[in-house]
């Protein structure tokens, strides 16, 4: 080290310009002291959010594995012929939401001279996905479906890709009741990504009923002969999360399964409401223990 350098180092700031050096040193020192806590805090927050979002995305349901025609047919057969023993074993205990009774003076809703049930939903809607399982089981006790399909709720909404049935394109045959199932949208977004692609259209009468009892426009919407109305699903879709159609259909046969407890309890309540429209027909259905429990749930709501 030269003597000049040594002198410079020893002299320190005093050897520099009296104003410039202290300011520069202060800025550098303060930046180190003042910046770090804030940057660490920001970094910690970003890391926490990244971990949460990453974990959430990682755990989203995978693309559903749609069964072939035979598999789909087997699922629909299982759902439309759930054993009465399973329905009776579940009863209506623990049902989350029951339809609301409308005033007795409300004009009856009929189609083709038969008391009618109107369902409005959409394929993207996970709550509709849950509701369809129970509604299909309930309706199948009064008639039969043609053209029921399988679909899933939106893969990008909550309860993503919940496996379910679709009423789009289906017809319901019954001597006792009429049923209109309207799926207003698919589970596919439009090109702009702003809304789901439209599917079925409500008739003017259906639109009027939908708005009359459901000003917020929420779906699923269920109107049972102008006697009962339900806006929203009867139970949460979480019980169906991650399950294939086959697994759900199979679980419905087992009254001890969580799926059956939720779906069949709701189906019994819906059945009880429909039995009021049919004056208790068919008797073997409407007087069954499960449906009687459903009637009690309606009466106590």
């Amino acid at each position, binding site marked *: 080290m030269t003597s000049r350098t040594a002198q410079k180092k020893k002299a320190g700031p005093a050897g520099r310009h009296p104003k410039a050096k202290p300011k520069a040193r202060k800025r550098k020192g303060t930046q180190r002291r003042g910046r770090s806590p804030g940057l660490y805090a920001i970094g910690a927050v970003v890391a926490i959010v990244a971990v949460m979002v990453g974990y959430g995305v990682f755990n989203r349901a995978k693309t559903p594995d749609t069964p072939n025609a035979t598999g789909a047919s087997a699922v629909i057969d299982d759902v439309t012929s759930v054993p009465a023993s399973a329905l009776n074993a579940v009863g209506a205990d623990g049902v989350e939401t029951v339809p609301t009774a409308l005033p007795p003076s409300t004009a009856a809703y009929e189609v083709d001279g038969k008391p009618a049930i109107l369902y409005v939903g959409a394929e993207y809607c996970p709550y509709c996905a849950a509701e369809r399982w129970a509604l299909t089981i309930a309706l199948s006790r009064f008639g039969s479906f043609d053209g029921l399909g399988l679909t899933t709720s939106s893969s990008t909404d909550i309860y993503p890709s919940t496996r379910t049935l679709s009423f789009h394109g289906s017809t319901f045959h019954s001597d006792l009741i009429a049923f209109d199932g309207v799926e207003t949208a698919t589970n596919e977004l439009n090109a702009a990504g702003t809304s789901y692609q439209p599917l079925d259209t409500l008739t003017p009468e259906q639109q009027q009923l939908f708005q009359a009892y459901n000003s917020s426009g929420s779906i699923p919407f269920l109107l049972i002969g102008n006697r009962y109305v339900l806006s*929203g699903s009867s139970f949460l879709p979480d019980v169906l999360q991650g399950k294939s159609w086959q697994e759900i259909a199979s679980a419905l046969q087992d009254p001890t399964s969580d799926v059956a407890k939720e779906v069949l309890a709701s189906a019994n309540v819906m059945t009880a409401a429909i039995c009021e429209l049919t004056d208790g027909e068919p008797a073997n259905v409407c007087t069954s223990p499960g449906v009687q429990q459903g009637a009690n749930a309606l009466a106590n709501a």
Partner: protein
Amino acid sequence: MRERPSWLGAATLVLALAGVGVSAYLTYAHYASSTILACSGSGLVDCERVTTSAQSAVAGIPVAVLGLVWFVATAALVSPPAWRSRAPWVRWTRLADVGVGMAMVLWLIYAELFVIRAICLWCTVVHVIVFALFVLVMLYGWEETEG
């Protein structure tokens, strides 16, 4: 000392006031919405489910109301006069304020993703505003006002 940009006071105040507006709307939505277990007509997001969830209130006080109160207090703390203040308690209160706000937002994001499993777009707007305030205060709010 890290110099505070001239726009800091105005930017943070605008953010806080935007937060007041959005949280006021969410407060209205909290009390106006009663339907649960339903999809909105357009799908995609489900604010109603979030604003009517069990996590939408803390100790009986709606989170939206807490947010509104927080944004009003924060607007005062990040106003240009507050940024010019040399009182240490203003600086530390501001730092603590954004820290508490950010912690609350982290908890709410957790609740949305893993408990409610629904995302509310308006809530997300609030979260972004809180994060922006947090970043600005953390970057420029540690040292006394240079003068």
